[in-house]
């Protein structure tokens, strides 16, 4: 008997009224992998996750969860998945213990098993000490960890995580990422949506890039990076910090310049041609080059090339996501 994929999506489409949110997408998630679903805000990531987890119905197309059709066999499909939405799905008025137990009851976990599992998960996620406290008193990072624990209490095969680190501080984000890796090592398939491209690069074995409801590509992060291999990047900083974007733009073989903190990223055709002109530019403007390096293309570069979204826009989106998350 052939092994079923964890998730198999064919021509999945969602209209909200006349708005086409997801446009005939196709992809497969294999069992045991961490699959990233990358895209800018409003690309259709959350709508896709909602369709795959039974929150909303697709307009057309099919989605199979370990072989069970989410439309015709929703209960069987839902038994196999744990869901961590972007927005908290926890009851603030209830304790951490009650939240996790309520989720276990909804998934028909037997009483003895659910108490053992709830204790184990709360300990694993470092929340057992606070298990009798109301969730309303928890920090954002603690809530996110509790959401993951709650989603795991029925031991699902597939875990759906929608923007798991959005709005979290650096330490909490790292904790969540470590937990995701640990869960995957233990055999859980992870479907992850994010617009943090570095996060997808660190975690995912394969990523799908979605933009304006359409899947642009599905591949490994490394293969995606090779699609922009032809593009070279020089990162340079000077002893004086001021906006030199327009001046740098005029240097030899430079296609684009992006300010990144106190550095400038020069997207060039031929680094050997540009590098001398950078030093010449510095001398002419009485500047000292404090650092200069050539960079390998990142997954973000591939994303930018594939979606046409400029790095500045991505940066603004990230800031917006952080402030929206608090």
């Amino acid at each position: 008997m052939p092994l079923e994929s964890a998730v198999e999506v064919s021509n999945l489409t969602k209209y909200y009224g006349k708005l086409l949110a997801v446009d005939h997408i196709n992809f497969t998630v294999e069992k045991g992998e961490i699959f990233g679903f990358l895209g800018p805000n409003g690309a259709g990531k959350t709508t896709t996750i909602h369709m795959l987890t039974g929150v909303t119905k697709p307009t057309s197309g099919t989605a199979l969860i370990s072989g069970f059709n989410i439309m015709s066999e929703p209960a069987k499909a839902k038994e196999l998945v744990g869901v961590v939405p972007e927005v908290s799905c926890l009851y603030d008025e209830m304790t951490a213990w009650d939240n996790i137990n309520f989720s276990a009851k909804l998934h028909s976990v037997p009483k003895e098993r659910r108490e053992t599992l709830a204790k184990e998960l709360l300990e694993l996620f470092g929340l057992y000490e606070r298990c009798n406290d109301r969730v309303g008193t928890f920090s954002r990072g603690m809530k996110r960890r509790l959401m993951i624990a709650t989603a795991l209490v029925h031991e699902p095969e597939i875990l759906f995580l929608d923007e798991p680190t959005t709005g979290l501080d650096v330490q909490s984000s790292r904790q969540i990422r470590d937990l995701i890796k640990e869960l995957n090592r233990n055999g859980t398939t992870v479907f992850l949506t994010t617009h943090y491209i570095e996060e997808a690069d660190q975690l995912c074995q394969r990523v799908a890039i979605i933009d304006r409801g359409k899947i642009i590509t599905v591949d490994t992060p490394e293969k995606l990076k090779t699609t922009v291999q032809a593009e070279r990047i020089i990162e340079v900083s000077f002893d004086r910090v001021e906006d030199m974007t327009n001046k740098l733009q005029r240097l030899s073989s430079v296609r684009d310049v992006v300010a990144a903190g106190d550095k400038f990223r020069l997207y060039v055709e031929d680094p050997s041609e540009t590098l001398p002109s950078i030093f010449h530019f510095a001398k002419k403007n009485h500047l000292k080059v404090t650092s200069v390096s050539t960079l390998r293309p990142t997954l973000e570069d591939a994303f930018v090339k594939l979606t046409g979204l400029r790095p500045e826009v991505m940066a603004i989106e990230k800031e917006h996501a952080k402030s929206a998350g608090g």
Partner: protein
Amino acid sequence: MTRPWSEDTKRAFYIAEKDVKIYFFKGPNLTFGLLLPVVLYLAFSIGRTVEPAQAIPGLVAMAAFFGAGAIQAVSLPLERRTGTFNMLLTAPTSLFTIILGKTLAGFFFGAVLSLTYMTIMLPFSTLPNLPLFFVGIVVSSFAFSAFGLFLSSPFGDIPQAMPPATVVRIAMVFLCGVLSPIEMMPTSLQAVAYSLPLTYSVNTLNQAMGGAINIQMFLIDLAVQIFYSIVFLAAAIWVLKRTIE
């Protein structure tokens, strides 16, 4: 193989238990469920010759009506706003089970409030026919809970859900023989009154609490309320499906 009904029934009870725990003592519940019936009764009866014994069945029906409805005006819209409703939607159960669970929570709140009112009013009333009274309260509270759920089903937040639900409920109080007999109303309004579930609840409680008992009429009043419960549940599911999907 179909899912065992017992699992879904258990899930409905778990949802009801959770709702009762969370929403029982929320401000709007206490204001609309506990206080509004007595405030409406006092506002209507002051300056009029309304005997308490005559008004008690209506007052108890109002307690069930506002009690069962109050929790529904809060729990569903609040869950949809905060995102907790998604935890229910992603569980391996149907929308019917979720709605049934929420209806049971409202039913419980309405039944407890009406029994509380009845206990307080007992010194001013004759002892009711207990079996009929309990059956009347059970059926009425369930129907009113389903009605409350239906009223809140289009809305994704409490401030949107509360005003229309309150207006509809207060209008029904004046139309359904709660404060004055339906027979005293104009014929056109009587037709409206007989199309509303609260009228049948007042009828059952009137019979159970000292009125002349006509078992056939009593059963018809119950049947109408059960019919309304089914219609409201089906309508709530239909509206919810359309708004969340």
